[in-house]
């Protein structure tokens, strides 16, 4: 009896140690959220990644990081002074932005807050109802604690400018935007009285959007998702690309709305009936056209709750391995500034090329001013979850201060439909340009590549054999090669070649090469590129 008691006493310290070890080893149990002021040295980011930490959010002046405490000293050694904000718990973490840099209420029960930038806070809460105790207007983003991915470089594989024939297609499409249809769709969305996510009216609005897309013979679908125990649905449809259907241009707008009394009345004509109507108009205009890349028309819900709908889509796209050329987010594009029609195009550093390209193609096709704003802190719309997943994206947003923003007064009567038409024209031109209209002649189809090694005794080379199907109306073909997928293509054929085969001989063997072919008609007009193939794709 005494022996047993002694044995038990001996086991107690061991159990205690095991208990402590179990606590400390719990996944995420000791992780911290840290704020690191910019600029951050690349060595520090490498140390963060190597230590199992992650960048959770990039803002204009700082980065939000997730890391274990012991990693902090290593980060300091790598030149990063990071200020701990809080320990990561099972709570939700939001970025909150209050336009005009208004102060927050002194007390927000159930919510911890940490100032990040002027007008921007990090909120930690387990209470879904906190947002209804905040005075409108405000903007929210749910943080993805798993970390964000670096945004991919631009696809330089596609044309920097549309093929000559494509320009006239873009002109025609932009000119065909209908004010009546935009007005009718905004009115229809406003007629739901509220589209606040979690309400039946919001779900009915989703069904309406799917019906509208189906009327255009697009196979529209729902993407259900949950947030705080509620269910809502994104609605999406796709115009399949003919040359590279796996590459997608996404145009997105949120159809949910909010106001000071969101469950009763939130007409959301500008925010974001205007963007949603523009997506429907894009669907109508683009669905009859032929493009190289697919176009995804995406209406998302629960944006006003913290970008839940677009996050669900972007995460799933990344998991599927979707290739996304670029994302155009249309969010409030119909309330003009008294000084004139103007739209701000928000991008982050890696998406700047997308903003530049939008401006270049919309100029002359839409009568409005387009301003480039490179600001990684502008994360309060549906482009931001795409940034987090490493996709290039921009947000088009009216350059004005609407007094009706997030109020029950945000109605069609306050909008300028002329502005809505011009902004939609710009969007049509940008999306069509990114998806690359197929003009005459058609790009070659069925490009295949085989590579074979050619050896001397001490040297290795490889030769690549290409063949493709003849394009109708083509007088010849041009062959291009890049060292990386969608890299900078260099033309291999100084003149168009007549046949439908080409051999690229005696290349250094230690890397892969990527090829595209274009067709040239008798008048010298060049088609878009064919689908890209890797040198050994058909071996």
């Amino acid at each position: 009896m005494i022996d047993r008691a002694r044995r038990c006493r001996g086991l107690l310290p061991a159990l205690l140690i095991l208990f402590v070890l179990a606590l400390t080893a719990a996944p995420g149990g000791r992780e911290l959220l840290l704020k690191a002021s910019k600029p951050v040295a690349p060595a520090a980011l490498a140390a963060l990644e190597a230590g199992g930490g992650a960048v959770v959010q990039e803002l204009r002046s700082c980065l939000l990081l997730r890391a274990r405490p012991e990693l902090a000293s290593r980060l300091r050694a790598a030149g990063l002074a990071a200020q701990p904000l809080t320990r990561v718990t099972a709570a939700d973490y939001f970025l909150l932005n209050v336009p005009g840099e208004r102060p927050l209420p002194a007390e927000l029960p159930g919510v911890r807050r940490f100032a990040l930038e002027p007008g921007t806070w990090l909120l930690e809460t387990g209470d879904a109802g906190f947002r209804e105790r905040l005075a409108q207007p405000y903007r929210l983003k749910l943080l993805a604690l798993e970390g964000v991915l670096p945004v991919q470089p631009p696809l330089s594989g596609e044309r920097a400018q549309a093929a000559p024939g494509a320009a006239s297609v873009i002109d025609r499409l932009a000119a065909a935007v209908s004010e009546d249809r935009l007005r009718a769709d905004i009115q229809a969305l406003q007629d739901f009285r509220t589209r606040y996510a979690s309400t039946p009216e919001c779900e009915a609005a989703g069904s309406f959007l799917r019906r509208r897309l189906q009327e255009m013979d697009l196979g529209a679908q729902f993407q259900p998702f949950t947030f705080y125990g509620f269910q809502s649905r994104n609605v999406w449809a796709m115009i399949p690309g003919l040359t590279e259907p796996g590459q997608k241009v996404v145009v997105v707008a949120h159809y949910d709305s909010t106001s000071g009394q969101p469950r009763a009345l939130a007409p959301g004509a500008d925010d974001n009936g205007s963007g949603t109507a523009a997506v429907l108009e894009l669907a109508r205009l683009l669905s009859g056209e032929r493009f190289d890349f697919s176009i995804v028309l995406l209406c998302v819900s629960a944006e006003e709750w913290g970008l839940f709908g677009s996050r669900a889509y972007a995460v799933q796209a990344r998991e599927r391995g979707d290739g996304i050329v670029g994302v155009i987010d249309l969010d409030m594009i119909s309330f003009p500034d008294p000084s004139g029609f103007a739209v701000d195009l928000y991008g982050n550093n890696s998406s700047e090329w997308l903003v530049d390209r939008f401006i270049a193609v919309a100029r002359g096709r839409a009568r409005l001013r387009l301003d480039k704003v490179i600001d990684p802190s502008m994360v309060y719309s549906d482009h931001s979850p795409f940034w987090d997943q490493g996709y290039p994206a921009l947000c088009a947003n009216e350059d004005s201060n609407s007094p009706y923003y997030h109020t029950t007064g945000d109605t069609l009567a306050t909008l300028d439909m002329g502005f809505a038409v011009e902004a939609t024209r710009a969007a049509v031109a940008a999306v069509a340009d990114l998806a690359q209209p197929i003009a005459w002649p058609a790009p070659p189809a069925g490009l295949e590549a085989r590579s074979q090694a050619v050896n001397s005794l001490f040297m290795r080379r490889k030769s690549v054999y290409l063949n493709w199907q003849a394009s109708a109306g083509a007088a010849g073909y041009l062959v291009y090669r890049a060292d990386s997928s969608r890299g900078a293509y260099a033309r291999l054929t100084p003149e168009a070649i007549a046949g439908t085969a080409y051999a690229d001989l005696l290349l250094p063997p230690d890397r892969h090469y990527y090829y595209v072919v274009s067709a040239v008609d008798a008048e010298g007009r060049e088609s878009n590129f064919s689908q890209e193939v890797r040198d050994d794709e058909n071996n």
Partner: protein
Amino acid sequence: MTRTTRRRALLLAAFLAFACLPCFTAASGTPGRRLFAGAGAAFLNPLSADFRRVYDRPGWPLEAQLGWRIGPRLDLLLSGRWQLARGETVVPDPVGPRESYPLRMRVFALRLGAGFRLGDGAVAPYVAGGFQQAWFRERWPDAEAEENGSGFGVFAQGGCSLRLGRVFQLMALLDYSYAPMKGDETGTIDLGGVGLQIGIRAAIL
């Protein structure tokens, strides 16, 4: 001075030093020792299957030799051996049209060793062996490519010598060499082989 130039200078110095040996020995009064020079050609059969596959015409290696008789039957040997081979590229796993490009390979080997006569008659068995340092240059004109390398190996010879008067000897030898070479893009390949070598020697000092 580049590495190649330095190497050539060293080789030249070694050759000159070897050539001057009889002068020093003559000064020290050691009669009977002779310097001789020789030349020969060989029919080579490479032992490497890769070599044979790429170079179906391995060429006829030519050799120039200086020898110094240091004993009644023992010779010290220094020789240079040139080989020019012609071949064509190979395609191990063809998936397209048959491709073939001409190749050129030059091999130079500097050999240092000893030879031993196994008799005093007009016809006597003769064996030799030693080390060699070899350099190769493979050229692929269509690819505008060239590969250089070097390697250390050994050689062995066996055959007979036929005395032709007081000055000349005719040599017929079976020649084996092991010449491992490593390229940048490949593993080690033996450029040596087995060959039949015919040559003539002349006593010059």
